[in-house]
């Protein structure tokens, strides 16, 4: 850490991590309701729908707070200047967290906009918009004042502005359900397969430059290509959600073809990362940070690229649409692409924010926590996938009524929940590890000497 104001990133990361823990607890409760019969009395006061709204909104909230914290850490280093308004950044965190908590409590009392993933009531939406504007203002002013532009910054800011603009399409009340879903996907799809990918590519490029020491010009050149391909395939690829909502049939073609190309930019990101890692200028230290970086890129490709591709063609989607197949993909993609991205960044930034020499930390329990979570999420996604394929076959193909087809699926949801327990254990350990980072057991001194010898980690320390 070289700039004082980078410190505002720390509370963002702490809040994000705590919300992450709560998200996973609720997820486990959701899975349980699939294979246990919840008594009517409990269903009446705390139904599945409320728990689902909390689970998904917590995810979005903590990922966004994580992105914002990462931005506040990254922008001073990229612009080589202090953040324009560090206090405002804290005000913004308090505002957004309070809004999020108000929304969650509101859900418990039935205060909701009632549209999946966009349940936050409209008055609170306005506060979210205020928070987003404060954030964009702070970031943009810092960049403009510094007059130093890099591709990393540009794609980060571009992604964040895109993200904020798209949110607006989720706010109005739409009379026509088909039109409603049409714009719902402008928020959901264009976020995860557009704006978030820009943010992810920028954050990954930044981390690659810091960790590998590979030349910025090389990383940034490929960044342009990645972004171009993400947006080329991702924008028109929105059509893969327009097959069955009452839109014209040309979307079967446009959605199918463009979205089938979406795995390529993700693959390119894997290749770029691999190349930079091989050309690195120093040792892979601290090892855990590298494990997260590479793990994230790979699971991003599996979850979004492969699992997404599996059901994106209309011929297949006709059967899998609205089934647990979507759930399987959604979990693995979000985890691989955005959960691991945030956690990697936390592992990169938090040691510096805590002032540990050269950003080295005691990694021990972190490795177990990573594998426990990663394998848990993989197992869970596979169980959802089996449940989903079964559901598609029984319900869509054999034409069994929903509740009949659900009977054998309950077993697979129990398997998913068992893996969910693994995820919970892993996540709690990860949170604990990140919040209590210490200098390595051998003492920071030894690491510092080793680091100074190869000079790279001091670059990472910037």
């Amino acid at each position, binding site marked *: 850490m070289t700039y004082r104001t980078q410190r505002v990133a720390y509370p963002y990361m702490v809040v994000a991590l705590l919300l992450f823990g709560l998200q996973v607890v609720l997820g486990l409760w959701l899975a349980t*309701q*699939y294979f246990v019969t919840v008594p*009517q009395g409990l269903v*009446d006061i705390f*139904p*599945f*729908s409320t728990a*689902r*709204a909390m689970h998904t909104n917590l995810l979005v909230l903590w990922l966004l707070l994580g992105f914002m914290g990462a931005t506040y850490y990254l922008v001073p280093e990229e612009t080589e200047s202090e953040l324009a308004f560090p206090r405002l950044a804290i005000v913004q965190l308090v505002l957004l967290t309070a809004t999020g908590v108000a929304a969650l409590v509101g859900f418990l009392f*039935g205060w*909701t*906009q*009632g*549209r*999946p993933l966009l*349940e936050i009531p409209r008055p609170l939406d306005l506060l979210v918009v205020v928070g987003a504007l404060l954030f964009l203002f702070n970031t943009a002013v810092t960049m403009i004042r510094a007059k130093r532009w890099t591709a990393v910054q540009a794609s980060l800011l571009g992604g964040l502005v895109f993200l904020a603009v798209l949110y607006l399409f989720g706010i109005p009340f739409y*009379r*026509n*359900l*088909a*039109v409603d*879903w*049409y714009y*719902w996907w402008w928020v959901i799809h264009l976020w995860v397969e557009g704006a978030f990918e820009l943010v992810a590519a920028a954050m990954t490029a930044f981390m690659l430059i810091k960790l590998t020491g590979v030349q910025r010009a090389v990383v*940034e*050149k490929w960044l*342009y*290509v990645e972004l*171009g*391909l993400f*947006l*080329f395939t*991702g*924008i028109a690829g929105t*059509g893969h959600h327009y*097959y*069955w*909502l*009452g*839109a*014209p049939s*040309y*979307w079967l073609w446009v959605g199918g073809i*463009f979205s089938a190309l979406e795995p390529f930019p993700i693959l390119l990101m894997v290749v770029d990362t691999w190349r930079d890692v091989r050309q690195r200028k120093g040792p892979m230290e601290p090892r855990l940070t590298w494990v997260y970086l590479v793990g994230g890129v790979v699971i991003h490709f599996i979850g979004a690229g492969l699992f997404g591709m599996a059901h994106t063609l209309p011929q297949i989607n*006709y059967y899998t649409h*609205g*089934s647990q197949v*979507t759930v399987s993909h959604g979990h693995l993609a979000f985890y691989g692409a955005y959960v691991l991205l945030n956690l990697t960044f936390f592992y990169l930034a938090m040691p510096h924010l805590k002032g540990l020499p050269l950003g080295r930390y005691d990694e021990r329990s972190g490795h177990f926590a990573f594998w426990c979570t990663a394998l848990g999420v993989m197992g869970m996604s596979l169980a959802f996938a089996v449940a989903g394929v079964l559901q598609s076959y029984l*319900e*869509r*193909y*054999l*034409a*069994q*009524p*929903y*509740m*009949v087809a*659900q009977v054998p699926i*309950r077993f697979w949801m129990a398997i998913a929940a068992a893996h969910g327990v693994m995820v919970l254990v892993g996540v709690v350990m990860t949170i604990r590890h990140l919040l209590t980072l210490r200098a390595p057991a051998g003492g920071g001194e030894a690491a510092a000497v080793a680091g100074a010898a190869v000079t790279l980690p001091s670059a990472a320390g910037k």
Partner: protein
Amino acid sequence: MTERTAKGVFWGGTLSSLALFLALTVDTHGQFAALTRADKLDDTVVAGKRVFERYNCNDCHTILGFGGYYAPDLTRAYTRLGADAIRRRLAQPEVAFRDSYRKMPNQHLSPAEIESLVAYLEWVAGIDNHDWPPQDSEARWKRSTERLLAAAALSPAAALVQQEGCLSCHALGDRGERQGPRLERVGARRSAAWIGEYLGDPQRLAPGSEMPGYQHLSAAQRQMIGEFIVALAARGGER
């Protein structure tokens, strides 16, 4: 690759996809009215959509395939259940689903809210969406029922269903009304014995239902109707 080419890829890719997407969006808006029968989208239907959102039904049920996967998709709920059956499930889910392994909350909907929800689900069921979901395809039910009726035109059970006026409330093939569940759909879920018993005393198995009792039929006749209805269920993979 030079940085110039890389930037070219970025702008070329982004702008071409964006242009196509926006052009199709404009065109799609021109077609929504016809595809969704927007002329039938009156104030009651819109009120129903608001109720649907107020009670967050969508985080348990999918509709058009989007939302929570915890409960049956509601795109064609009107087609398969009919108005009266929907009313009873909304008014008293704890009774309607008392024997089920999965419950729906009683959110104390007012009669006006229930009426608007029924209107809303009726409108949604008419959206032309390439006949998704396949298990609720009316075209498929009609075809298979036509085949069956052609083969069993003189079946005594089919004749009873005609005589007793079941089709003044239930849909079957391309005939009938939509107060109660579509008979093909009933057959997919219930056994012949269950149906026979139900016809004798609907109130016992489904308290509060609008279905009249058929005590005047003999147990054998009721069982026969049950077998007929089970035979109607769309069979695996049938188109």
